[in-house]
Structures are given as structure tokens and as C-alpha cells.
């Protein structure tokens, strides 16, 4: 073998090692986001402005909360399509409690906390119903959550008609709106909330018994059952968590819009699931992390924002987003195949 061919050999094996390291890095999606950001910067230099960056962050926050809930469900090899209807339902229920236009507790100092409690309860209740149908009646998660999604999307609109003649419930109390727009120590309240949810979710998944059991149920449900894992409870817990997260997201969205509206979140279902999957969480269960989901959401919001700023029409934004999600799925498949070969 000549010296040059040895050299190329060494270089190519070094290259391969580099490709492998990047491909298997936990931060792959983060690197992709940075790369994408740098790539579009020449075309839309405004992307780097504080204004836009702050917008990106505030767009990420509620989406991230729902996506974290979805991560739990995907880890147990489920899927929760009902999250958008939970956002809508919680929004109108919460608004109906606290609105100044004839809300149940209009004017009461308890209105805001009671409304928020009601919203979380809506999320937990729908999550519990999903969990019950899936674990006790043995129905497939796709069908259960598809139908609850349809039902509660409709029910949210119906519920709105009892409270207003317009399409949304406005005139929310000042206290609620301020809560969403205020800040503590210069950090917006909503960011505090999302940080808390994210850290809590990370700890549950990485450090607790429940976390280990969630992964086990996604990896091999039968082996988990034989090893004494209460499989039904664990799966139901994932759907409860997803419902609660969607409700928290609803609080954030409602606060931002300052109205309770039944069409809230209608269009973001694919963004939610897409972001989690782009992050690297597997649709087949057993694999997923909160940080991955953070990166996935960041990536998706970056693309969204940049495409809008480039002045592209809505349908081309859709098409490009679809292509990007597909690309992420392809990368994941390549990764899995690579892993099988080692």
C-alpha cells in the first residue's frame, strides 16, 4: 500500500468517525438549528435582531409545553392527538369562569386562580378519559385520541355559544392578562412556567421510578409486565401528563391572546408531534428526552419564523415544513440502521 492511499484511508476513517459522532450526538438537532440559522441569516439579517429572537422564544414556549407532554406519550409507544382539543376546551372553560362578561366568578378575587384550576382539571380529565379507554378497554391510542380530539374540538365551540354570540370569550380579567405578560427578575412569567415544567419533566424521566417504567413500557410492554411494572397505570400516567401539559399550554396561549377561543391550537397538532419526532423521540416508543424535544421545537419555530420573514406564502411554508419533518424522519431511520450495524 502506498503512502497516499494510507493517508486517504486514515482521512476517510477519521471522516467516518466524525460523521458517526455528529449523527449520534444528542445535540444533532441543536447543531442543525444553529447551522440553519447561520444559513438563512444572509437572506434575512433581521433574524438576529433582539425583537425577532424574543418572538421566536415566545412562540416556542407554549408549543414546548405541549410537546413535552407528547414526549411522555410517545415514550410509552402511544400518541396523543387530542392535545389541540384540550387546549381549545381548557381555553374556553377557563375564560367562561373568569370573563367579565357574565363569567361564573366574574369580578371575584378567586376568579383567576379558579379559572386556571378549571383549565388544568379539563386537561387532566380528558387525559384520564384517554388513559382509561386505552388501558382498560384496550383501544388503540390513535383512535381514542382522534375521537376525543374531534369530540372536544366540537364541544369547545358549542360551549362557547353559551357564553357569547361571537366566536370567542373576551374581556378576561386584568389579573390574568398581567400574569401572562409580567416578569419576575426580568424573565417573563411564561418562561418561568415553561422552565419549571421542563425541569420537572426531565427529572421525572431521568431520575424517578416512574421515568424508568415509562421507558420500560415503551421498550417491551410484556417484559415490563412480567417484571412487575404496573403497565396500565404507567401508560395512563403518560396520558394524564400529556393532558395536564396541554392545559398549561392553553393557559399560556389564552393569556397571550387575552381571549378564550375554541379554535385555539387548531392548526398546531402536526407541529407538536413533528417537533417531538424531529428531536429524536421515537414513534415506536422507548426512546425520548426532554432536551431533544426542546431542540425539536427550536428547530421547527426557527424554520417557521424564517420562512414567514422571507415572505413566502402559507402553502409554501407548509410544503417546506413537511419536507423538513420528512428529512428528520429519514435521518432518524439512517441513525437507527447505523446503530444496528455497530
Amino acid at each position, binding site marked *: 500500500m502506498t503512502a497516499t492511499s494510507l493517508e486517504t484511508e486514515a482521512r476517510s476513517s477519521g471522516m467516518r468517525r466524525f460523521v458517526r459522532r455528529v449523527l449520534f450526538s444528542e445535540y444533532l438537532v441543536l447543531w442543525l438549528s444553529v447551522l440553519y440559522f447561520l444559513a438563512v441569516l444572509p437572506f434575512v439579517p433581521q433574524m438576529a435582531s433582539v425583537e425577532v429572537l424574543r418572538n421566536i422564544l415566545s412562540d416556542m414556549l407554549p408549543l414546548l409545553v405541549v410537546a413535552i407532554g407528547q414526549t411522555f406519550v410517545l415514550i410509552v409507544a402511544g400518541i396523543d392527538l387530542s392535545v389541540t382539543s384540550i387546549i381549545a376546551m381548557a381555553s374556553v372553560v377557563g375564560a367562561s369562569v373568569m370573563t367579565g362578561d357574565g363569567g361564573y366568578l366574574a369580578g371575584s378575587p378567586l376568579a383567576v386562580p379558579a379559572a386556571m384550576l378549571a383549565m388544568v382539571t379539563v386537561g387532566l380529565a380528558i387525559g384520564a378519559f384517554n388513559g382509561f379507554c386505552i388501558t382498560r378497554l384496550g383501544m388503540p391510542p390513535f383512535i381514542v385520541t382522534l375521537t376525543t380530539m374531534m369530540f372536544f374540538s366540537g364541544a369547545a365551540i358549542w360551549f362557547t355559544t353559551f357564553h357569547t354570540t361571537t366566536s370567542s370569550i373576551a374581556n378576561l380579567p386584568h389579573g390574568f392578562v398581567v400574569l401572562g405578560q409580567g416578569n419576575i427578575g426580568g424573565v417573563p412569567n411564561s418562561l418561568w412556567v415553561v422552565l419549571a415544567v421542563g425541569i420537572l419533566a426531565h427529572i421525572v424521566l431521568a*431520575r*424517578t*421510578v*416512574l421515568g*424508568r*417504567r415509562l*421507558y*420500560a413500557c415503551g*421498550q*417491551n410492554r*410484556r*417484559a*415490563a*409486565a*412480567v*417484571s*412487575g*411494572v*404496573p403497565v396500565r397505570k404507567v401508560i395512563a400516567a403518560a396520558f394524564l401528563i400529556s393532558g395536564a401539559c396541554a392545559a398549561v399550554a392553553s393557559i399560556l396561549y389564552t393569556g397571550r391572546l387575552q381571549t378564550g377561543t375554541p379554535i385555539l391550537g387548531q392548526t398546531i397538532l402536526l407541529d407538536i408531534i413533528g417537533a417531538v419526532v424531529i428531536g429524536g423521540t421515537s414513534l415506536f416508543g*422507548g*426512546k425520548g428526552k426532554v432536551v431533544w424535544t426542546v431542540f425539536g421545537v427550536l428547530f421547527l419555530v426557527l424554520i417557521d419564523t424564517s420562512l414567514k420573514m422571507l415572505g413566502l406564502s402559507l402553502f409554501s411554508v407548509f410544503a417546506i415544513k413537511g419536507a423538513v419533518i420528512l428529512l428528520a424522519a429519514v435521518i432518524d431511520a439512517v441513525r437507527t440502521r447505523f446503530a444496528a450495524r455497530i
Partner: protein
Amino acid sequence: MALLECENLRKSFFGVEVLHGVSFSLDRGRVLGLVGENGSGKSTTMNILGGVLPRDGGRIRLEGAEFDPRGPKDALAGGIAFIHQELNLFENLSIEENLFITGFPRLGGALPFINRGRMRRRARELLEQVDIRHPPGTPVGSLSQGERQLVEIAKALSVDAKVIIFDEPTTSLTRREADRLFGIIERLRRRGIAMIYISHVLADVTRICDDITVLRDGAVVGGGPAAQMPTERMISLMVGRTLDQLFPERTCTPTATPVLEVRGVSQPGVVHEIDLTLHAGEVLGIAGLMGAGRSELARILFGLDSFHGGTIAVDGTVIEKPSPRTCMEHGMAFLTEDRRGEGLMMHATITDNIALASLDEYASPWARFIERTRLGDEVGRIGQKVRLRAADPVAALARSLSGGNQQKVVLAKWLLRNPKVFILDEPTRGIDVGAKFEIYKIIDTLVAGGAGVLMISSEMEELMGLCDRILVMNHGEIQAEYSRGEFDSGRILEAAMKRKTSAAAPGAIAEKVA
């Protein structure tokens, strides 16, 4: 000239030769019985004949011409049909569609439309030959196991097979269905079709075969006309080795303290009035044929399946509502038969797998955080105890391990809980000899430490080499009990195979004899 001649067939897997030159021949209208233990090379030989595996050496001659199948399709075209143990039928399709799935008759010969009329006529003819009276449009899913087998045979006839290979054909058949199958085999024989019949039910082999060939460790160790091969001779040829070297010295004897007491456990159609007592320091074996209800009993004892009537007690305490959780709390552990499906998380690390059954023991009281250092230390200790060998004994994925080491991971998972009653269902299935020995040693250490082991195995050798007592199950009942010293493979087999005269008995098949 013989119809089929196999000469000196050789095959290696990963550098280990498993077939050391197998030869046999087969004439038209004859049935050759092929018997031997699991791993003796029967399946490998037949897979070579059926084109599933390429051979490494030797030659096959079919009707005098060299025969070198490159795949199952090739073998079939040459006239060799292989009827597998697990039938390859599409349950959602009709009988006729299954018969012609590899080549539907088409309208006009080449148009992409199925010639339904022709298909139906051909299907009727074929079904008549195997005595199936259902219309050809019947979905296969609605047929009984026996009828499905006959559909497979009809499929073989549809391509004019000269040789039909049956691999354990009666495993899932009732006695009556098996008799019907034998009738068809007789009819095919008279038509001049040659057949190879693989089975562990030696009585069936004696009944329907003309010649018998016995395999052991990848070589032919005996053979001849069926009339000169009584069952005892077949068994002694199949076993043919002394037991001592394969098993470690047992270092303890059973005590008189019962750890598991099962009284009158019944589940209609599965097990009937099971009574058994397992003592501390005892290895209690359960022998029996496939379908005798052994695994089903184990699943009931561990609370995975429900039962009506009877009690299960560990250390004198009756388990009120048996579920895996409650059984584990009482000190039971269960190594399942299906290692990949129920034992391991293949894509998880060794540590995660071992920890799975003990998470509660390593959780902080309130927030239920895992105490990772303590858990890691214990997992490492247990891994050493079972002599786990892996590139990385902590973070390696379960699927990267060999079968033996995977089984050690499952054992370690349960050892971490210090169980008092250990139920092992086929603990050494699919494991190489060296790892088997190590698992036997672990079992010995377990009972020496005061636990009781209930061990289900289809390898009679293993039971006789390791157990203090053997129970024989047959048709969901305990048929016989033998203590060490009165072990005798012939008697055990006899008890396992004894047929109930009444009732529709499930097809009795020795998964593993000798």
C-alpha cells in the same frame, strides 16, 4: 436408483460445524422418519434440502441428477416441498388464494386478472385429494389446525412435489386430526410420493414410517427399517452419552421446609387439580410434552394468567390476589420461556434490564428518585456473580449480547431481588453448552442459599442431571413423580406420553425426548 440421495452433507455456523457429514437416501413411495434431540441437526439438514440454507459440503441427487437449490422456490420447483412446523398460510385469504399465492392462474394467460373459474376448479381437485370438504372460498382463518395442515399438503400437491418434508406436523393437532393426517400420508405413499417425517412422537414415527434415521450431534448414529427400531433403541441412540460431565456437582440437599405450596390449582382446559410442594434447597423439575400445560402452570403460579380454584402459598402465606407484583412481593421470580419477548428490553442497557424488577427497592421514599449509585453498585455485583461477559457490563445493549449472556441478564434481574421461589421456564433454550453449564451452577448456588427452584425443561437430560425430584405433566395434570435415584428417561417419557383414552386429547408431541 433412489429418488433422493444425500451424501455427506456438511454445514457450519460461525465457524462451528453443526453437520458432520449426514447421508441418507429415500425411495419413491417410502416414508423416512428422522428423529433426534433438539440441536441434533434435523432442522439444518431439512433446511438444506428445502433450499432455506446453503450447504458447505456434500452432494444431493434427485432422480439421479445433481440438485443444488438456491432458495426455497428453487427446491419447490425441483419437486421438494417443505411443510414447516409453523404453517405459512395467510389466514385472511381463502383456501384457493393460499393454494395459488405463488402463481395465480390468469385470464388470457398473462393479463393481470385472476382466472377465478380455473382457480376454483383446480382448488376443488386438490382439496378432494386431501379430503377437505370446505368450499375453496373458505377463509383459512376459519379452518382448524389440522385442516390448515392439509391445505399445506394440497399446496405441495399443486406443484407436483416428489418429496414432501413434514417438520413436527402433529404439534398443534388433536389426536383425531393427526389420525386423519396419517391417512393422507398413507394415500400419498401409495401414489409414489416420498416423504420425510420429523417428529419427537416416537410412537407416530414407528407407526407411519418405513425407515428410520437417528441423528445425534450433527451425525447419523443409526438407522434401518422401522420394524427393527423399537422405541427404546431410538431413545438410546438419540441420547447416547453419559450425563455426568455436562452438569456441575450439586452442593446441597433439599430441606424439609416448604417454600412454595400449590394446592388444587385448576383452570378449565389448561391445568387440572395441580398439587405440588417445593422445598428450600430443592430443584424440582417439571417434565412433559409440548402442550402438557407446563408453561401455562408457571404463568398461573406467577399471577400472569388467571385460574379458578386452588391456592398458591409462599413460605406458608397464601397469595391473595396473584399478580406478578404480589407474587414478587412474596418472594417469587419468573424466568419466562420467551427471552426476547418477555424477558428483556433488547434496546435497553444491561443496567436498565437488571434494575427493572427492583426499582421500588432503590427509590427514595417520597419523590421516588432512583438511588443511582447504590443501584449501580448492586447491578455490578450481581453481574459479576452470574459471570456476565460483555464489552461493557453496564451500558452495553441487551441485544448485543450472546444468548447465554442475555439469559444471565434475566437471571441477574431476578437475583437482585433475592427470591425465595424461582420459577425457570426453559432456562437453557437456545444457549451454547458452556453458558448452560454456568447457568446450572447459578441454579445450584441459588438453592444452596436456601431458595427453591421450579424448573421446566424439555431437555430430559438436563432435568435428570440437575433436579432432586421430577414431576411429569400430561394433559394439564401431574401424572407421575420421581425422586433422584429413580430417574429413568424411559419411564418419564412413558408418563409424559401416556394418552387419555377419552376426550379430545391435544396432539401429544415430545418437544424434546431423551
